[in-house]
């Protein structure tokens, strides 16, 4: 695209490699901020959406890859890469003033690679304990359990409230400043890690003024399993089974994304049959996830009955999964090259019976909860998220679409069988809690339409392409996006041509949603905070990869 070419021409220091719609731009460390702000702040085409920041350890150098796209032309992606040779005290410029989502991403890179982002006011660790020794995703990390023994005491809350900032003064000397998160007399309440409605082990430290929320500080890592680290010792066919366990509600979709990434790298031809089956299963997963999201939100607002109704209808989908895939919550269905086994003979019949049932139940759900004046009154006018904010925060999925940001990957780059289905991307413009709520129910309706169109047209053929016994990816970096039920899920695989990946990074859609919560819940009441958590519908294992 010409605009992008022009833009990149303004960066003489950059090395540009183009692959289709992806530009790989390598800039020196000193010019990182200049390049980033050029991409963000130009008038013609602003790269206003930061998909992810991927930390990389190349053995000799540490680096970060900023994956950027523009909300106007989302099919183009720029991978801004920068490396530093300093392994002792690596520093990079922070881009926190350009993208709001950079806040947590930079902390994540800091946590795992030890890179300090200058001027980021909050350089705490994100997932690990503040007193953790070493940086786990570095290749020279010492995993000796004696260095980091299993803690027997609670994490020190004081350490959690201490915000270090690193910067370099005029003489080039490194300086560290500390700042307190909360004032001494603030009324700070811990929501979580054990709390009925944090959707998992999420820890929110909330500063209150009576019922009004003044400040929120999310704390992650209570169920962090180091999946990205484990992936580095797993072979390619083994990795998908971990992906199911990240976001357990849209695991099938995320797994599909990973398989697509590997297939793209291997240039493996996948049969249409597999594509159709995967798409139908994905949409069923999306319905199941949205039903649970709907029910959880209702439960957070105190309507437990609605939650049970959501679970009841979800059960029908789980039953279909069990019959065809062999698992319920973890269907383990997609694999590299297609799907594990062909669909069950009764699959089509069951899905066709499910569609009208779900339509009927959807109508009832609308009457029960959408029409309820208490619920409407609570959701209206609360938790406003503007389109600009949504893009800057990277709040993808239904949350972003409720704010009017057209971000459906199924439309941007139709993967699998989505190009054969006729469906609308649900968009709303108000960005209020009610929009986020109702867009999920609308998406269930759209998913039903997709399923209806595809279910009778599953083409014949093999359901899985033959792969080699040992899969080795060619050297390079591979990137794939899919539309998960909570937002955009990205897989980034860096390969050195071996049996094991060099680095795998998954973009967690839920992490940005928690960051969104931090911005939109301030000024609301406690009840609003809980409801907003429900309306954003995050899943904590997805954050704590």
């Amino acid at each position, binding site marked *: 695209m010409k605009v992008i070419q022009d833009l990149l021409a303004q960066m003489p220091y950059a090395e540009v490699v183009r692959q289709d719609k992806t530009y790989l731009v390598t800039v020196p460390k000193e010019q990182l901020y200049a390049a980033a702000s050029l991409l963000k702040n130009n008038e013609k085409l602003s790269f206003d959406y930061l998909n992810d920041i991927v930390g990389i350890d190349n053995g000799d150098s540490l680096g970060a890859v900023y994956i950027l796209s523009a909300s106007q032309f989302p099919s183009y992606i720029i991978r801004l890469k920068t490396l530093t040779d300093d392994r002792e005290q690596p520093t990079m410029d922070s881009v926190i003033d350009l993208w709001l989502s950079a806040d947590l991403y930079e902390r994540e890179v800091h946590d795992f690679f030890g890179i300090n982002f200058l001027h980021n006011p909050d350089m705490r660790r994100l997932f690990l304990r503040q007193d953790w020794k070493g940086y786990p995703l570095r290749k020279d990390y010492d995993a000796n359990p004696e260095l980091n023994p299993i803690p027997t005491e609670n994490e020190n809350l004081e350490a959690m409230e201490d915000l270090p900032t690193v910067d370099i003064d005029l003489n080039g000397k490194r300086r560290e400043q500390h700042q307190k998160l909360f004032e001494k007399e603030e009324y700070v309440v811990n929501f979580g890690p054990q709390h009925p*409605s944090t959707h998992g082990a999420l820890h929110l430290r909330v500063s209150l003024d009576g*019922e009004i929320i003044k400040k929120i500080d999310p704390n992650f890592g209570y169920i962090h399993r180091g999946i990205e680290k484990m992936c580095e010792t797993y072979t390619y066919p083994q990795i998908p089974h971990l992906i199911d366990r990240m976001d357990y509600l849209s695991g099938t979709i995320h797994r599909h994304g990973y398989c697509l990434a590997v297939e793209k790298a291997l240039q493996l031809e996948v049969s249409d049959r597999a594509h159709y089956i995967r798409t139908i299963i994905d949409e069923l997963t999306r319905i199941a996830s949205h039903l649970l999201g709907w029910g959880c939100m209702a439960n957070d607002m*105190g309507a437990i*009955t609605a939650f049970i109704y959501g679970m009841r209808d979800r059960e029908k989908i789980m039953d279909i999964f069990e019959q065809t895939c062999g698992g319920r919550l973890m269907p383990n269905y997609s694999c590299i090259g297609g799907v594990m086994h062909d669909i069950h003979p009764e699959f089509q019949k069951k899905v066709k019976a499910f569609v009208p049932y779900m339509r009927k139940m959807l109508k009832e759900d609308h009457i029960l909860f959408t029409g*309820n004046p208490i619920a409407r009154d609570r959701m209206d006018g609360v938790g406003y998220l503007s389109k600009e904010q949504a893009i800057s925060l990277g709040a993808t999925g239904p949350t972003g679409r409720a704010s009017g940001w057209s971000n459906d990957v199924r439309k941007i780059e139709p993967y699998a069988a989505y190009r054969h289905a006729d469906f609308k991307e649900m968009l709303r413009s108000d960005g209020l809690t009610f929009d986020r709520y109702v867009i999920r129910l609308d998406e269930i309706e759209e998913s039903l339409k997709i399923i209806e169109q595809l279910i009778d047209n599953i083409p014949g053929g093999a359901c899985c392409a033959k792969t080699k016994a040992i899969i080795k990816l060619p050297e390079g970096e591979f990137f794939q996006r899919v539309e998960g039920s909570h937002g955009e899920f990205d897989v980034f695989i860096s390969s050195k041509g071996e049996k094991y990946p060099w680095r795998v990074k998954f973009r967690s859609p839920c992490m940005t949603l928690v960051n969104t919560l931090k911005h939109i819940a301030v000024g609301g009441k*406690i009840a609003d905070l809980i409801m907003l958590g429900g309306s954003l519908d995050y899943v904590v294992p997805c954050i704590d990869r």
Partner: protein
Amino acid sequence: MFHLEIITKWLDEFLRTYLLDGWALFIEFVLIGVAILAAYAVLALILIWLERKVCAFFQCRLGPNRVGPFGLLQSVADMIKILLKELIKINKVDPFLFRTAMFLVIIASICTFGALPFDKGIQAVDFNIGVFYLLAVSSLGVVGILIAGWSSNNKYTLIGAMRSGAQLISYELSCGLALMTIVMLSGSLQLSEIVAQQSYAWNIFRGGIPAIIALIIYLIAGHAETNRGPFDLPEAESELTAGYHTEYSGIQFGFFYLAEYLNMFIIAAIASTLFLGGWMPFHIPGWAGFNAVMDLIPPVIWFFGKTFACIFLALWVRWTMPRLRIDQLLNLEWKILMPLSLINIILMALWIIYV
């Protein structure tokens, strides 16, 4: 009509023939005390079972069905469990107030329970200011809740207690005003007198539209007073974990639990006494045959039937609606229920004068 009065009368005469008046009275007091406590506990068990069963049926589930037929003994088993549970000692609570709070809550609830007319002659105390007494005593419970929240030394409980204070005190108003309309209609504060007046037509029929409005307002406000259903902000399970009783364990928590269920019963019982004729059967003036059939059903059954109908309504509402937010809650009271009930009092006055 078969009144349980016969039994109490007989007991009274029986005791008085053998004992001095003072001793007879003393024994009667003890008996009444025991009977009230027993009825309180048994009703609580029934209500807990009922709530779980009804809730389950609303949610397409089966509910308790393992202990006893239809799970009838489930709440008995739960009671035994809760009695055997350890009372966890919490270090930083205010020990005296922490242990007093639940007694305040349950005493308020028992005192109200004692004044209910279950049948002619089955009423522990028949004050001539019965309605006033009910309102006064039932509002004592909020003190217990506030103390519980404050003494637990926990941020969740404190928020819960403060919410509960705001909620109960506001809803007390429209509750009282709704009852006042009926007091205007019957011209008496005495519960037995109010019930006796409804022998030909219940108050909602006698009082017409104002009485119906008053009943709706009373049911909403009363429901809010029980801290249940859409008004469970002080507990707000998904927000404040368990609100004011977060720190309580074992039977200490059990007391709060009992009081909550019995308050539901009390509100329903007051509604049926004041609006739906109490233990009076359903009569239609002029239909002698129909009335005679209705008279065959014992008044106690009438009373409990009406009360449980109100309780079912409360459960139905509870398991349908989402929780209100604190500002909605106060808006509902101060902007809708309160003005409506004030207007309703005027309406009732007009009704009494002209109809």
